[in-house]
Structures are given as structure tokens and as C-alpha cells.
């Protein structure tokens, strides 16, 4: 199956599948209505080719640290800030790769970047917000957003 854009349902399904496989298989990642703000730490990957845009995965610091702890099989307080950023980057890398697979070729995936707050690429003000979903996990917010670059519209 190939698509030309991303529905909320597709983004939610892939995010939950990857979350369950990598972070927490208890089914406790739950969709929660509208996005009011982004988290403290955001990972992103760019897609270029038949579709151009950026995927963001944004966490509260508490959620990011606990997700990283699950991935490292370690206690949250034992992880360094770099460990937490690494885990956030890997999660958006896997989510981005699986979403990219739905696009017609060619589609290239960038290396992930992780930044405090929401990184704002130069095209963001003119980009189209394709999908934006808020989840709750361990009573903390997690947001995934898909932006389509203006040169792709």
C-alpha cells in the first residue's frame, strides 16, 4: 500500500505499534484529544523525495526519561541526558522509517535530530500541518506531528 499523505489513523496506528514493540507493550499509550502544547524534548526526522516534510515526536522530560529507561532496561535516574536524547532520536527514527515506507519511492529518511522544545525548521511557518496527535503515557503528554514542506504543496 502506498499513500500520498498521512491520516491521523495511520500515524496513530504506527506510533502505537512501535511504542508497544520498543517502549511499553502494556497498551498504556492512549490517544487524548487535542494538542495544546509541545513537550520539553522533541525528536525529528525529515523525509525527502515523492513527499517532503518532517515528523516530530515530542515528550515531557519525565516521559522521555522513562521511555529511555525502558529501552535501556535501566532505572530512569541512572540515565544521562545523552541517553535520553538517544532514545528519543531512535524512536522518531523508527516511526519515521515505518511511515516513510507507505510513500511511493523515492523517499529518503534523514538522520534524527533531538532538540529542547519544538525545533522550528525554516519552512515551518509556511508548512502544512498534516497530522498532530496527543497521547498520554504514565500520565505524561506525548505528541506526534507530521508537517508537509511548502515545496511539496
Amino acid at each position, binding site marked *: 500500500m502506498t499513500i500520498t499523505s498521512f491520516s491521523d489513523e495511520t500515524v496513530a496506528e504506527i506510533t502505537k505499534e*512501535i511504542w508497544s514493540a*520498543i517502549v511499553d507493550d502494556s497498551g498504556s499509550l492512549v490517544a487524548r484529544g487535542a494538542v495544546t502544547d509541545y513537550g520539553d524534548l522533541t525528536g525529528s526526522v525529515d523525509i525527502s523525495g515523492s513527499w517532503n516534510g518532517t515528523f516530530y515526536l515530542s515528550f515531557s522530560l519525565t516521559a522521555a526519561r522513562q521511555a529511555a529507561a525502558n*529501552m*535501556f532496561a535501566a532505572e530512569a535516574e541512572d540515565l544521562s541526558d545523552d541517553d535520553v536524547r538517544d532514545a528519543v532520536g*531512535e524512536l522518531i527514527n*523508527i516511526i519515521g*522509517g*515505518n511511515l516513510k515506507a507507505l510513500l511511493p519511492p523515492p523517499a529518503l*529518511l534523514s*538522520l534524527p535530530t533531538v532538540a529542547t522544545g519544538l525545533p522550528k525548521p525554516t519552512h515551518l511557518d509556511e508548512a502544512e500541518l498534516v497530522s498532530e496527535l496527543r497521547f498520554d503515557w504514565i500520565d505524561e503528554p506525548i505528541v506526534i506531528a507530521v508537517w508537509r514542506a511548502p515545496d511539496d504543496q
Partner: protein
Amino acid sequence: MTHALVVDDSRSMRSILGRILRGFGMDVEEAPDGRAALDRLVEGERPDVALVDWHMPNMTGVELVSEVRSRPELAGMTIVMVTSESEPDQIGLALAAGADEYIIKPFTPDAVADKLAMLGIGPGASGCNQTGEGTAP
């Protein structure tokens, strides 16, 4: 004991994959990119299997596979790509470069075991020293 080299720029993914392989009773080494892995392969004891990510700085996984396959002293080493690149064209590219198998992220311990067993490695392979169950990532 089977000796595995995990090549991934993500420490968290190396941790996940390393736990799974150690759960299979394997001895596991890690490298953070293709260049570091190649240096390790040239200088050290050759592993039985290398599990290699695609997107890494310095040298990508596909570049590493091509480089390994071009070196006679590394002939016969089993290489498995482990990546979120799941399109058929990408899988074909990796296999054409010389990868023996392909695991798509996210994966389960069972999926890793099944792929390695197809290559005669790990808990599902006949004659392997199985010492434990895979742990979930």
C-alpha cells in the same frame, strides 16, 4: 559461543539488540557506526555475525556491507541488516550489497531468532548453544 557485532549509532538500539542476543547466549560487541565497525573487523577477531543498522554517520550500513564484501580477509562473515528501511527497493539494495538477511525495526526477539536461525545461528539453529530466552526490548 556465537560472537555477534552490533553496529548502530543509537546506544538505546544497541542496548535492546544486545540484550536479545545475550539472551540467546551470544557474546556481543558493539560499534557506533560503520567506520568503527570496519576498524574493529580489520583489527580484531572476526565475529560470527554482524547486525548492522542502515543510517549511521561516517559510514552507512550499506557502505559497510559493501566494504566487508570487497575484502577477502572478511569473506564468509554473516551480515544482517537491522533497520527501519522497509521498502522492497531498499531491501533489495542491501541484499545486492552483500547482506545475508534483513530485519525491520521494530522487531521482536522471536523475529531476530527466526532470521538468525535461517542463517544457522542462534537458539533456533541446530547445534547452537542455547542458554536463554530472548528478552523483550
